[in-house]
């Protein structure tokens, strides 16, 4: 009996898609440049269905890939050609919420923001906040160790995952970690995070919940040069403050954000800096006085302070929508995700500007300045012959620059399909071989999300498809 027949035994027709017209919706993810057609899509409603699907795939030697909402920006949730897609959106229950011990147990298909909403009555929240948090799922966040705007202070997804129940690539069910925010023995749950789907499929995740800060203090400062904004970030860091978030937007992204959401940003600024402090009221207010004095010395020609929550949300709305807004300035664009040491931010921006001139392509910049995570947005017109390839080349130059400066090719989007050929720039052959040995120990047939993270293997041809439909509709955004 072939795999499809076996899946038919396991799933009723409404939970199993094999027709081309049904499969097309699953061909791509947030990185629309890549597409490939799966053999089948299954929509499990129970953990056992997921486990059994993985076991059948293992037995048949057929690749599989689990996905949530498909917002990956690195092609991480693009199907493996001819493989099975396991979509987890129906496994979206919050199984337990324990406010006193500050954790929640959720199914992998639970949407990120739902966790914070459920915890809110207890004045708790789930800290990692990728820009797509209204739609992306915890399972995807876990697989790609997602970040957000608050990583310097709060860390990435792996810092907030306490326990995982997962089915490994060969069908074995593993229970990693537990309910404690401390660990004893190797941090297996932490190690499972960021595996990019290569170890198997997370089913249930125990998340650490964080007390909501008593107070947020947010300011926006406008500068006539990017360099001044960069130096302001250094000044804040050197003062010994630990802001929850520090973000910079350049001229092009300010323009884009303003066009899209009317954030009221100063339109003539060459750079905007957003700094947010958060914590206990008295401590934050005291720090904020210091911060305002400090910003005054950094050459900001205009400073605005959010007077209430609504004003704070407006400042953030412009920032969070900046990338989808760029879609209004250019028919196509690539988002990169490299990291440089924070002290070299200004240098990195000058280099990106030079590359932009060299390639004749506009690059807008929005970045998490607090942790050196750049998001250059390379604009191009996909209808022009070779334009995508040209843009890809420029993106590659930026990634190489990040590695040369001692940073990383990805801060939060993951390697996926998109950046796998750059892995050898960051890790040598011994490092890569060691990772592959670990992968094979968990997945001897290499069927779990085959073709991702490691260079080589089957990569589909690059094609241009414009922005993701949800992105065009303003529902999701790239960060």
């Amino acid at each position, binding site marked *: 009996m072939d795999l499809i027949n076996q899946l038919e035994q396991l799933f009723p027709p409404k939970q199993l898609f094999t027709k081309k017209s049904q499969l097309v919706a699953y061909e791509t993810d947030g990185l629309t440049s890549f597409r490939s057609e799966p053999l089948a899509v299954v929509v499990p409603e129970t953990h056992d269905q997921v486990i059994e699907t993985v076991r059948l795939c293992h037995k048949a030697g057929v690749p599989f890939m689990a996905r949530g909402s498909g917002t990956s920006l690195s092609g991480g949730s693009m199907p493996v050609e001819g493989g099975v897609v396991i979509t987890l959106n129906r496994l979206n229950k919050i199984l337990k919420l324990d*406010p*006193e*011990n500050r954790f929640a147990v959720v199914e992998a298909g639970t949407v990120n923001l739902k966790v914070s909403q459920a915890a809110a009555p207890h004045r708790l929240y789930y800290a990692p906040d990728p820009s797509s948090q209204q739609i992306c799922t915890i399972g995807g966040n876990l697989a*790609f*160790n997602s*970040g957000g705007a608050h*990583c*310097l*202070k709060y*860390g990435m997804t*792996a*810092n907030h995952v306490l326990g995982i129940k997962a089915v490994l690539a060969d069908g074995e069910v*593993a*229970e*990693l970690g*537990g*309910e*404690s*925010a*401390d*660990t*004893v*023995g*190797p*941090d297996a*749950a*932490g*190690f499972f995070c*960021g*595996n990019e789907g290569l170890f198997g499929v997370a089913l249930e995740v125990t998340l650490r919940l964080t*007390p909501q800060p008593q107070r947020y203090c947010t300011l926006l400062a406008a500068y006539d040069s990017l360099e001044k904004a960069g130096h302001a970030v250094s000044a804040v860091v*050197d003062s*010994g403050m*630990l802001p929850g978030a520090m973000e910079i937007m350049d001229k092009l992204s300010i323009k884009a954000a303003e066009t899209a959401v009317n954030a009221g940003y100063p339109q003539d600024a060459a750079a905007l800096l957003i700094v947010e402090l958060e914590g*206990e009221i*008295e*401590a934050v207010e*005291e*720090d904020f006085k210091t911060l305002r004095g400090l910003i005054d010395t950094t050459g900001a020609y205009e400073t605005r302070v959010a007077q209430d929550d609504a004003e704070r949300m407006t400042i953030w709305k412009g920032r969070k929508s900046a990338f989808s807004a760029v879609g209004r300035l250019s028919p196509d664009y690539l988002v990169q995700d490299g*990291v*440089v040491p*924070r*002290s070299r931010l200004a240098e990195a921006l000058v280099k990106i500007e030079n590359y932009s001139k060299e390639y004749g392509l506009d690059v807008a910049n929005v970045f*998490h300045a607090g*942790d*050196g995570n750049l998001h250059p947005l390379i604009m191009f017109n996909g209808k022009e012959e070779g334009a995508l390839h040209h843009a890809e080349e420029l993106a590659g130059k930026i990634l190489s620059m990040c590695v040369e400066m*001692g*940073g*990383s090719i990805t*801060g939060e989007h993951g390697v996926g399909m998109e*950046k796998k050929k750059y*892995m050898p720039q*960051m*890790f040598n052959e011994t*490092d890569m071989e*060691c990772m592959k*040995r*670990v992968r094979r*120990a968990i997945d001897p047939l290499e069927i779990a999300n085959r073709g991702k*993270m490691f260079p080589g293997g089957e990569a589909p041809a690059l094609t241009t498809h414009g922005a993701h439909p949800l992105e065009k509709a303003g529902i999701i955004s790239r960060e």
Partner: protein
Amino acid sequence: MGQPIETPTSIDDLISQVKSLSEVIPRGSGTKPSLWESSETTTLIDTRQLSSIVEYQPSEYTITVQAGTLLSEVVEALAENGQYLPFDPPMAEEGATVGGTVAAGLSGPGAYRYGPLKDFIIGVRFVDGIGNFVRGGGKVVKNAAGFDFPKLFNGSLGRLGILTEVSFKVFPEPQSYVTLQTQCESHQEALKILPIVKGYDLEGVELDNQLNLQMRLGFQEATMDVRKQGLESLINKDLSLTFGEPERAVWKSIKGFNWAQDNRSLFKVATHPHSALKFLNAIQLENWTLHLSNGGKSLYLSGPADDDITSLDETLKSQKLTGLQIKGPVDSHPLIGNTSSIPFINRVQKALDPENRFLTFSPTTSEVAS
């Protein structure tokens, strides 16, 4: 005769020693004997010659050090720039090394504020079981490339590879501290206070064996009084206040495990407040000296060196809790209680150590049979 010892002075040295030996376990200053004490066939690799601060730029909020570096040196270098390791590692004064602290996965009371060691380790270099020199993670605070070996090595017990270098994220340290102390009637009462103070940015919440609850605030001078009043009104009982040198001594003593006597065993259990309480109700309290750390997220127990580890192991298992023996003679393996993660870790170990040079995490089939 004790265990044979090798003392590598370079990475090359270390690699050739690993390749030439059949069974090895790394050791720093030896402050956590249960992790490395084993049979005479296991060679100790003393890492203390691999000691230096490799890279430290305060404005990056990161530091990279060799694994044999003393914690006290790292703490000092950071303090000169107003920074600290936010997981507040214990036993720095007792001579613990960075590598040993990571391998044991130990954090101190300060972890209450921002999280334990696993949340601050961002990069590692290690020699695996077949002598490969491997790098995982990186040196920047945000990085999602490749498998997260830094997380894996937190609590690796010297059994997945020999750490040579570690990178940490670091933070600015509060300018000064005060400690608020109150006497509780019972563990139950103390645990009731914990959820009440959860919105406060405390730097530590510890409950000792005499049921003294210590809460540490880091602060700027201007806000100290109003913050202290806020806490008092919440808990509705008088708090005594310590600051200056006596205040520092309180926390130094906690981090040195001074409450646990030298010749007794020491265990750590990963808990949360309710699981800690449930566990305390299930054991013979009179046998143990207890210390509830990190707001109830870790429980330390000290008992007679010859105590019955089997019954402790069974109680932990029945409550799905995991424990680690840090001091005292080990029964079979330092990890006890719930070991549901271990089958997964064993598979990873097989990849990192295919020739079985490192010690195991749990009894093998033959050990169980014997």
